């Protein structure tokens, strides 16, 4: 097979590749970064490059205009090299940073009645070691083991080689006084396995902090809380985008990427890299102490099942294939060094248990922190991100399901959609006679696009003013220039080019509306299926608890108007923020809570939506504004009757 030379950006040495190689692959070999948010599936059009010399075979020209194609633009992930090439890679947009710690920091009350001696599995003990002499020739390791047995009553303690190396110097440097850290977590079968986590010279101050971290690995965002395990106090809260985003925005894309050669390893390194950065950042943020990553002795992790697999470097391939069986729901404890985490190399990493491929430890942890498993009230708990996971139940029983709502509410998959960052339209109002919109932009400047909450608000306004009908069709008979035929069918212009950052019109298309309808219908259908599975009317729900970062920006009234949330009195809704990291924090502190999460995972009944067509039925029924069965939305029915619905004359 022929080899070809590919030159990137004029300057670099050409790389030599086989005929048939993709441009993305050649770029990787040349060490040039090309973003592929869709994971190289040819879906997002973000990997566009310009071929200035030579010819490629384009498998797909999706999202490129014929003009673009004429200028040599092509999708790097869909273009096959069939000759020598010269390629220009445009400057890659950096993922915008909005996750400023201060903005996401939340007040956390330490667990009431927290007592490290009673609750904490990570224990600190001060030992006075009997010095050896000519009579007592016991080796240092045996000496330590004997002390652990006699002074503390621990018969079997696992001591890794890396710590054996530290024993002798710790004894002598501390003048035969040492501090040891032991983890006494009970295993799945209730039998305690004692693990030595660290040994340091001297007795430290009794109230010195013991550092631990609670982490939530989201598909999009990773959050870490740095905690003093002695007091239970949270000293720093930091978050950052998951660096895996450039290899795919959703879990499916990542799973597929992981199946590629070297993909799994790369994704594992990316996520561990993100966490390591967060660890350093968090340590710097602590005000009252100097903390180094090596002082962190215990890490508790919540994550969806795919992220947990990738975090541990376990192939996630079978998660996406029917009948959707993950390699594990509950991983054993590991040591930090096994997975490359830059905390204390022997720190205990506790991955919380999940329920199924699409209901992971982030949900079990969320259920714990939201207290769903401990309430008499019939509770609907929901965590909306790219996937909508939800739990219905109380302390008697819990049912759960996950529906792929798609990323529309995160602003993706919508033409002018964007994340909730500066420049995003976050709320829209439409005049009911002129059909002219007014909008609010995050940061107050010119708009760049529309974020999830803006889309929900926009959809509700379009519907309530009759700009779209209940099926989402734009009413072409209205006299307003804002409804027009666009490239993808009919659309409604929210902002004219002269008002926007980039000078282009910001509009919502018929296709976007369909995507939003699908997303909201999937979530509402999930509620219905859960309620049906146990034979409880959804309307009997006594409280709705909403977790995930999404919740913070959600307007309940508009969400009910479009039929995303059930039509319940507003006071029944409660936003809890990141319930997953909070659950991880609870489990990090207390063995009782850790045990509760295990119980939650074991008692939660997972409803697989693809098992029969009840979900499909519920989904089709919800693919309408607000719903085909308007009786489910009495407040919206009332509101519609009070506004006039324009009809064609």
């Amino acid at each position, binding site marked *: 097979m022929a080899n070809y030379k590919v030159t990137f950006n004029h300057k670099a040495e050409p790389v030599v590749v086989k005929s048939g190689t*993709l441009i993305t692959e050649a770029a990787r070999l040349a060490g040039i970064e090309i973003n592929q948010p869709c*994971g*190289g*599936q*040819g*879906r997002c059009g973000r990997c566009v490059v310009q071929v200035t010399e030579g010819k490629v075979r384009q*498998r*797909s*020209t*999706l999202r490129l205009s*014929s003009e673009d194609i004429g200028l040599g633009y092509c999708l790097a*992930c*869909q273009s*096959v090299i069939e000759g020598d090439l010269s390629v220009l890679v445009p400057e890659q947009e950096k993922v915008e940073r909005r996750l400023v710690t201060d903005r996401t920091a939340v007040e956390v009350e330490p667990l009431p009645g927290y007592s490290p001696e009673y609750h904490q599995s990570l224990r600190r003990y001060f030992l006075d070691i009997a010095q050896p002499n000519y009579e007592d020739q016991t080796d240092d390791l045996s000496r330590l083991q004997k002390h652990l047995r006699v002074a503390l009553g621990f018969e079997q303690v696992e001591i890794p080689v890396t710590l054996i190396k530290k024993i002798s110097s710790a004894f002598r440097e501390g003048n035969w006084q040492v501090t040891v850290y032991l983890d006494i977590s009970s295993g799945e079968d209730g039998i305690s396995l004692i693990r030595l986590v660290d040994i340091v010279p001297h007795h430290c101050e009794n109230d010195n902090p013991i550092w631990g971290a609670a982490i939530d690995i989201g598909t999009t965002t990773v959050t870490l809380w740095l905690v003093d395990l002695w007091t239970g106090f949270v000293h720093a809260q930091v978050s950052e985008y998951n660096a895996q985003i450039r290899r795919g925005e959703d879990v*499916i894309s990542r799973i*597929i990427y992981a199946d590629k050669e070297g993909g799994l390893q790369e994704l594992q390194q990316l996520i561990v890299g993100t966490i390591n950065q967060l660890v350093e950042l968090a340590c710097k943020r602590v005000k009252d102490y100097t903390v180094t990553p090596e002082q962190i002795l215990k890490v508790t992790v919540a994550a969806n099942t795919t992220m947990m697999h990738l975090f541990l470097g376990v192939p996630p391939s079978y998660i*996406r*294939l*029917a009948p*959707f069986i993950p390699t594990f729901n509950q991983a054993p404890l590991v040591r930090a060094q096994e997975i490359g985490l830059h905390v204390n190399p022997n720190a205990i990493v506790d991955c919380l248990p999940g*329920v199924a491929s699409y209901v992971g430890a982030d949900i079990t942890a969320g259920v714990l922190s939201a207290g769903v498993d401990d309430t008499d009230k019939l509770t609907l708990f929901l965590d909306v991100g790219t996937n909508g996971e939800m739990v219905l139940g109380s302390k008697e*029983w819990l*049912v759960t399901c996950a529906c*792929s709502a798609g990323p529309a509410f995160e602003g993706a998959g919508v033409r002018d959609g964007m994340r909730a960052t500066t420049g995003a339209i976050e709320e829209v109002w439409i005049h009911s006679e002129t059909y002219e919109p007014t909008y609010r932009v995050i940061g107050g400047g010119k708009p760049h696009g529309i974020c999830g909450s803006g889309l929900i608000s926009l959809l509700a306004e379009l519907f309530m003013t009759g700009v779209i009908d209940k099926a989402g069709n734009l009413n072409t008979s209205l006299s307003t220039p804002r409804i027009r035929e666009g490239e*993808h*069918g009919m659309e409604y212009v929210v902002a004219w080019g002269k008002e926007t950052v980039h000078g282009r019109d910001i509009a919502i298309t*018929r*296709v976007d509306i*369909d995507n939003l309808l699908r997303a909201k219908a999937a979530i509402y259908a999930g509620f219905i299926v859960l309620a049906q*599975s*146990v*034979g*409880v009317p959804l309307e009997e729900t006594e409280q709705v608890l909403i977790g995930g970062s999404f919740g913070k920006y959600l307007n309940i009234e508009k969400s009910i108007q479009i039929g995303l949330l059930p039509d319940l009195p507003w006071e029944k809704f409660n936003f809890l923020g990141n319930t997953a990291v909070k659950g991880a924090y609870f489990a990090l502190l207390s063995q009782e809570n850790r045990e509760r999460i295990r119980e939650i995972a*074991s*008692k*939660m*009944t*997972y409803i697989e939506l*693809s098992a*029969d*067509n*009840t979900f*499909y039925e519920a989904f089709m029924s919800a693919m309408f504004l607000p719903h085909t069965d308007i009786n489910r939305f009495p407040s919206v029915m009332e509101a519609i009757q009070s506004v006039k619905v324009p009809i064609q004359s």
Partner: protein
Amino acid sequence: MALSGIQIYKLLPQTNCKECGFPTCLAFAMKLAAKQVELSACPYVSEESKAQLEESSAPPIRLITLKSDGYEVKAGNEVVMYRHEKTFYNKPGLFVKIKTSAPEGDVKTLAQRIQEYRVNYVGIELEVDGIAVEDDANNPERMKATINAVRSMSKKPLMLFSRSASSLEAGLPQLSGETPLIGCADSENWEKYAELAKQSKTALAVIADSVDGLAELTEKAKSKGVEDLVLVPEGKNLGHELILQTQIRRLALKANYRAVGYPTLVFCQNQAQMAQSIAKYAGFIVIDQFAEELIYPLLVLRQNIYTDPQKPIQVQPGLYEINNPQPTDPVLVTTNFSITYFSVANEVEGSGLPAHLLVADAEGMSVLTAWAAGKFDAERIAKAVKAANLDEKMTRKRLVLPGAVAVLSGEVEAELPGWEIRVGPREAVDIPKFYKQVLLVN
């Protein structure tokens, strides 16, 4: 009455021990409610709960099985009035009538045709279930001879109908070791027929023109020790028959009225009656004519009505021609999820542009879902191309993939040498534009 998952859950130990094979007691309870598992899978259920659960799960319509050497036909065990509520389980047994007055040669020919009839429908072999011997000659000797003639050609299960018990007595010894159905017992002859059924361990058909009449007969037959009963509601016309069938099913299911908790049998004379009996509750259907052009659509109708409606709504995988395409026109690929198919087909149809729509078997999932679940990959697409024999049919080999699975283009290229693989738009609504701007241009 059937219990809901939560009601059953409350009767279970609630220990989530997982020994039944399900992750939680609630999951097991839901499966029990759906009748997809047996209670015996739970080793810890209390005797008290067991009694309660078994009471609620006894089948309201008795399962009747007719047997012969190597064949079996089942009817009964139905649990719903409308198939969408769950599903209909046992397809009505289709029996063709042979008369004892017919010459032996004719009997043999017909029996052979019935025995050999086989037709393929979407990969399933369909056949007739059995033969009903009607003693129109009212002659024990003819009964015996006809049965022997039938048995020389066909081993399928039999039904024997006669106005005189002596004909049945003459016929039954020919069928030792089998479970045929005999009938029809009415208010006058029931005693003799019931005795015969009990002795020869056959199923017994009882006939009456009202629900009460049927109930009275089953009670009597039961008192004689006959358990396997089949009801023949004798309607005065099509409408009356429909009402009787509906009332019987409803009383059995909703009122738990055991006296009519048996499958029914209909003697059909025309297509309307056959369609009605298949759609509305017959357990057995006896038709008095054998013609391929009638048997085939009846078998298909029966297959359709008894399809499990809980499965996702699918269209038949295969090649669909839209707007009279030529072998040079493009092949568009999509999945067999009905909504996906309809949206693509409607767009192409509406555009007036000719195309071959290749529907791949993706187990009824939409394009992205199927792709994510590994049910719509290069291998499956290639398989669909081969199954439709497109390599030979098409003179220009152009395959258009849905935009959502652009990622597959390389693999499909590898699987289908000689084909030009194009990536279409993500949304069906953009197909006409794509067709005009891309496919028509080159």
